[in-house]
């Protein structure tokens, strides 16, 4: 795994997002949703795994990587446990990140007050 590829792929995915936000009327949340679903679909088609092998965190840290983890978890669980795996696998594999985001996010939201943009 090369830092150069990590940088190029990671940055490239962000550029796609930036262009989508600038050129079309897609707002940030829509871009996020689009990316997660796109990551999942590409993983299902077997097209995202090679990118992950090439770029490592460059492909897993941007949001398509979240869709990748979800779908990969579901696919792995299906091959091991059958149909129920489709329901359990995705959330199981992303549980750490989601739980951390919920718990820590809640704590931060309760401890800090909103500030205006500087």
């Amino acid at each position, binding site marked *: 795994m090369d830092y150069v590829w990590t940088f190029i792929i990671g940055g490239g995915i962000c550029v796609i997002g930036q262009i989508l936000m600038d050129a079309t009327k897609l707002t940030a949340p829509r871009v996020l949703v689009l990316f997660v679903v796109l990551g999942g679909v590409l993983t299902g088609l077997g097209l995202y795994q090679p990118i992950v092998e090439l770029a490592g965190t460059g492909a897993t840290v941007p949001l398509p990587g979240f869709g990748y983890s979800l779908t990969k978890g579901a696919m792995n669980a299906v091959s091991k446990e059958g149909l129920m795996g489709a329901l359990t696998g995705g959330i199981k594999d992303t549980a750490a990140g989601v739980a951390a985001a919920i718990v820590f996010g809640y704590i*931060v939201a309760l401890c800090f007050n909103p500030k205006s943009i500087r």
Partner: protein
Amino acid sequence: MGNASKDAKEQKKNEQKQQAKAYEKYVKKFTPSPKYFSNSVKAFVVGGSICVAASYTQEMLMARGFEKTEAGSIVTVLLICTAQLITGFGWFDTIAKFAGAGVIVPITGFANSMVAPAMEFKKEGPVLGSGAKLFTLAGPVLVCGISASVIIGIIIYLL
């Protein structure tokens, strides 16, 4: 008589339409067109840097004896917590103003999208305010992402 008033109405409508169009043109003159190139460069550099930093941290953890997937999870958690803390201090919007998609597309943007509305709606209480608003933006992402993954899992099972 009836026709005349109808014509007058239509004329008025047309005039209004023209005025609206003229106004639109006038507004367009003053709205700055987005700087595609410089925005993209900023997003590229910042987004790429975040990914490289994540990769570096993962390798450091692996050198200390963590398994690869475990190290990956720890890095994700670290990124999320950092982004949420930065949001809490009120610095995230400043950074996002500069970097745009560079910080929104990585998992940091997802983390920020949970804390920001939760903080904003604190006044409505810890349950229906912060607790509910934590998912205003993260909800759609989770709903669509999980739905997609389950559907793909079922398709794979059927194939």
